[in-house]
């Protein structure tokens, strides 16, 4: 491990703002994310959670401010480079390769780190990829679905597949955007268990609308409201915060 990799802060945003035209989606957010824990970003609808998530994952570039991963500036890096740095994400809306098999979905995810422009060797000869894909499918509970077309899976299974694909990058940082969106209570429970299991080995940042869900599993919580960072701290601290109570908890428990 290098000195930077051992630093307790894996990701840092310094004064990031995002404007869409004249609309300020995010205003001057500075935050640090600790290595090896689950941090959740919560907030009511329109709080800027997804915008912030997209800045962290490189899908958007901030209008002002800086994003640092393991001490190096990644603010203006093209998005496909993020996976190679060790940052992987799942999307809010299910985002898979629908007509490919479940196994191929994960195998392609793995292949990005081995071979991207080889037009000649048979891909079946890439060593270990097919086996590693099966291991990841077992990890996310899709082992017996490997030959199915990805689009034929149930919604919860597709979300699990997405996480399997994100894990293909063997990321040190896993970004999950509302991983339980649209799930049944049973599927939600399975997904939460999976997230807790994954967090043992890597840092997880989670965006979630349903706040009750994340309070139990998060080590730290950031609360966004109208594009501002309203509060941050342990779940207990956030729960006690008067402002948070007023704008978020008080209105309507989710």
């Amino acid at each position: 491990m290098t000195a930077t990799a051992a630093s307790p802060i894996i990701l840092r945003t310094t004064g990031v703002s995002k404007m869409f035209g004249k609309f300020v989606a995010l205003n001057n957010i500075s935050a640090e994310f600790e290595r090896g824990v689950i941090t959740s970003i919560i907030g009511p609808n329109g709080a800027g959670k997804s915008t912030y998530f997209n800045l962290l994952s490189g899908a958007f570039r901030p209008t002002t401010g800086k994003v640092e991963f393991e001490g190096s500036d990644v603010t203006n890096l093209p998005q496909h480079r993020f996976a190679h740095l060790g940052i992987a994400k799942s999307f809010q809306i299910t985002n898979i390769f629908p007509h490919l098999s479940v196994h191929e979905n994960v195998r392609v995810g793995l292949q990005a780190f081995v071979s991207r422009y080889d037009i000649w060797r048979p891909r079946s000869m890439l060593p270990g990829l097919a086996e590693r894909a099966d291991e990841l499918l077992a990890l996310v509970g899709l082992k017996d679905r490997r030959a199915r077309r990805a689009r034929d899976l149930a919604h919860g299974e597709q979300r699990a597949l997405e996480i399997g694909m994100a894990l293909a990058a063997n990321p040190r940082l896993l970004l999950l955007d509302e991983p339980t969106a649209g799930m049944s209570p049973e599927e939600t429970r399975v997904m939460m268990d999976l997230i807790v299991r994954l967090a043992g080995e890597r840092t997880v940042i989670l965006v979630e609308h349903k706040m009750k869900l994340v309070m139990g599993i998060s080590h730290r919580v950031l609360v966004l409201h109208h594009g501002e960072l309203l509060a941050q701290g342990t779940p207990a601290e956030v729960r006690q915060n008067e402002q948070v109570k007023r704008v978020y908890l008080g209105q309507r428990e989710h």
Partner: protein
Amino acid sequence: MIDIAPTIAASSSRSYNWFDLAKRHRVLLASIFVLIFPFVMPFTALAVNILIYGLYALGFNLLFGYLGLLSFGHAALFGTGAYLCGIAIVHFGLPWYAAIAIGVLSALVMATLIGSLAIRTRGIYFAMVTMALAQCVYYIFYQAVDWTGGENGLRGINVRAINLFGLHFDFINPLVRYYVVASFVILAFFVLSRILASPFGAVIEAVRENEARARASGYNVVATRLMTFILSGGFCGLAGSLAALHLSIVPIEILHYETSGMVVMMALLGGMGTFFGPFVGAAVFLLLENLVSLWTVHWQLVVGGVFVVCVLFFPEGIWGTILKRIKP
């Protein structure tokens, strides 16, 4: 992960059914078909035409069917290959094999130029930009009369004999000519099949399936698209070069947007995204053109009708539908 071992064992020892077996040997099967093809055709010159346009459609389909990008400017790649192959022979007196190499190389260069400009756009915009750039190419070749013969076309590509490794083939003989062209088409089948089965082939499919996901997985989508466009251009350039040798003239119409539109029809008719479909599409298109025009000058009406029926009732194309029906 001991518990996954049975899955791996099961997949590696799985016995293949005949459909999978045929799929694995698609190059061999396509080659056998090409070798017996002239004997079921009404005349050999038509069979040669089908080979050439089949190859053109095959190259187009790499971009259209496998990557999912609709180019409306592939005539520029087909035509550039044809013209530069012809120019190499007419103006520089180069041997046929060097002319083919130049035809392919020039199409690769043209694909790089057009691709670099068009590849950042998508959907209808990509179709329009490629069409506009192809029209630019048309006018450049049209104006360069000294090199291309302008509206009269490039004449005088007279290749009478093919000499290779001490062997002498009479290129005037239609059947010999067919098998010379067929050997290049079989080579193209092999190369295309390798590309599709390669790691890059998997990336092409991933980008077609879901660009955002491919990007998040760590693939450079723009670079993948450009490389596929260039590879597609290589196949079309080879087809163009063979067209120049076969016709012994390069008509300016080869660069016309009708040539771009025709290959879209062929790919759709046969089945986009299938290995052999574009070839089937080219064969059906040219057969209809040749047979119906014996009976009426309005052959395009019949081809158009067949096309509409296909798109409406067999959206997977003729070959795509056959594959779906016979798949066990």
